[in-house]
């Protein structure tokens, strides 16, 4: 928890990305920090859920004749207060850092050091949420023009509470900082099929595309993976118009590649996907091999960058 103050003087660019977390195995893992927008959305879902619960309780109390018009507001405020605070704490405890809203949007609270969420952290970050947003928020609602100073103060307080995460690399609000937590996107593992494991791409006539080594020296990993994205579009279902548009994009890409690498033979439209797949396989094989020899090519500017060095 304690951080040597010397570390603070490290320059900004030396710091690891906020998205990476060093596992005990020594392999840096990626846990993407959740932004303000998605967290606010989850919060709104939670407020709607708790508010619905309050309305139900109020209707029940009304049916039991326990409320009068004079006390309606006070009881309502109390019910909201008494439902809201336990709701956040209990859900985050039971689902290990996820309220219902967070579950829906697939975000999760984790310990800042990557360890388990302690009860203390959950309680603290949710109590601070009251102090940061809800209390000044209700104050803002109940105050009127007669007390401009207090209204301004609570408004300024809320603005500050929302600004603090913007300046923190882990998008931590005050409660997160105190509790030592931050919120991440829960990664969803989906394994798409390997494009090069499919049958080797052939032309309609049964021939194969052959690329020479110098033809594969133009591009880097970025272009390769962009091409991979384009090829994977074919795996999806799509409308005819979209498909035609996709074929047009492919044709343009193919022309660009052909010109760049100096591939002389013309490619018939029916062979476009096969050509691109074959090029992808050859290019990936080439780049992966270069990488094994210590020559990482990030993008097509690798030659220029290499010369500069």
């Amino acid at each position, binding site marked *: *928890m*304690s951080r040597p103050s010397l570390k603070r003087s490290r320059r900004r660019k030396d710091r690891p990305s906020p998205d990476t*977390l060093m*596992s*005990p*195995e020594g*392999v840096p*893992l*990626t*846990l993407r920090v959740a932004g303000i927008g998605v967290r606010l959305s989850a919060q709104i879902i939670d407020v709607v859920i708790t508010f619905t619960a309050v309305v139900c309780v109020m209707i029940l*109390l009304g049916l039991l004749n*326990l*409320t009068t018009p*004079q*006390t309606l507001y*006070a*009881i309502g*405020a*109390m019910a909201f*207060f008494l439902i809201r605070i336990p709701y956040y704490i209990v859900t985050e*405890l039971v689902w*290990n850092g996820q309220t219902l809203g967070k579950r829906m949007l697939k975000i999760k609270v*984790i310990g800042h050091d*990557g360890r*388990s*969420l*302690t*009860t203390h952290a959950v309680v603290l970050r949710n*109590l601070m949420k009251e*102090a940061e947003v809800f209390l000044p928020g209700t104050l803002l609602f109940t105050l009127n023009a007669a007390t401009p100073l207090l209204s301004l103060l609570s408004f300024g307080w809320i603005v500050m509470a929302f600004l603090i995460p913007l300046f923190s690399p882990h998008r931590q609000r005050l409660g997160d900082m*105190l*509790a030592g937590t931050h919120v991440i996107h*829960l*990664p969803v*593992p*989906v*394994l*798409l*099929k*390997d*494009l*090069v*494991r499919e049958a080797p791409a052939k032309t309609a006539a049964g021939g*194969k*595309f*052959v*690329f*020479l*080594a110098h033809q594969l020296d133009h591009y880097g990993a970025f272009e*390769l*993976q962009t091409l*991979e994205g384009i090829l994977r579009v074919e795996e999806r279902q799509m409308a005819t118009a979209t498909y035609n548009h996709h074929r047009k994009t492919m044709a343009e890409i193919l022309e660009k590649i052909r010109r760049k690498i100096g591939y002389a033979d013309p490619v018939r439209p029916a062979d476009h996907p096969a050509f691109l797949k074959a090029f992808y*396989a050859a290019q*990936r*094989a*080439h*780049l*992966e091999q270069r*990488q*094994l020899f210590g020559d990482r090519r990030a993008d097509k500017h690798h030659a220029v960058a290499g010369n500069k060095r």
Partner: protein
Amino acid sequence: MDQTVGTTGFGGAGFGSTGVLRSARFRAEREADWRTLEKLVTEAERKGLHRMEFAAARDLAACYRRATTSLAIAREISLDRALLDYLEALTARAYLCVYAPQERLGGLVRRFFTASAPQAMRRSWFFIVIGFLCMGLGALTGYLLYFENEAWYFVFMPAELAGGRTPEATTGYLRSVIYDTNPDQSGLGAFATFLFSHNTRIAIFVFGLGVFLCAPAIILTFYNGISLGAIMALHVDRGLGWDMGGWLSVHGVTELSAICIACGGGVQLGAAILFPGAFSRRAALQRAGRDAVKLALVAAVMLLVAALLEGFLRQLVQDMTTRYAIGWGVGALWLTWLLLAGRARA
């Protein structure tokens, strides 16, 4: 034209005998293992790690370690975006299952009341004493100022809090407020109203604002003490001192103590920022927060009890002595709990 893609003039070292890319073979060989891990992770997330079978939990840890190795290798040898994304997501998720599982929740509430809360209170006795001092000195100030000049009363006492109990009110009116047999609110409504009355707000603010270098917490508590002293002085002046004391005791002992404890928590946070000692300010704040939060929770529970006493009991009990007995009896219970609970058995 009948060559394989691999023999394109650079030896084909990336290909095995099957003519498949090294990275593709790497993936094919391990894919089943990753799928197993995926299943185990889903199970662990659904059931919780401590409810999984031994074999499954053991496999989860082993598969996770193999997957991190795969990830490290894949980052070096593969340019397959699909594979890299999948492994990143899978290992991250498995990491959370293995290293950040859910903490056990059994006995959480019981542990809080029987051990951690009273222990935290005893650890931070100094700050709680500061809280009580702020309130006490404030009350003394208000009391003395009232006797110096009655006009001070209007300075300290917000009109809506006084509820007509001003130096201009008749003694009869003051007595009627204290022994009010027919209040306009009772039961749940009164409970709610009292809970969200002035004092709860004060308690929340003295705790929350303590972070700002203690000053707001101390000033607010002191100010609250002043109004308390002033209203006491008003009643003492009219010869109603003991009656007012009884009226206030029923809930006040608990409620005002809650404010003092909340103030103690706030001051503790502020002190961590002012005097962080050997830690960075953030680390000091995090350390202080461990006890301060427990003080805040205790204060919240006490405020709830105070609202119960105020909403249901105060109007039922009209006898002064009984009021004193109830108020201070409950106070003694709090003190006993604070002093005796959670001590290790000798």
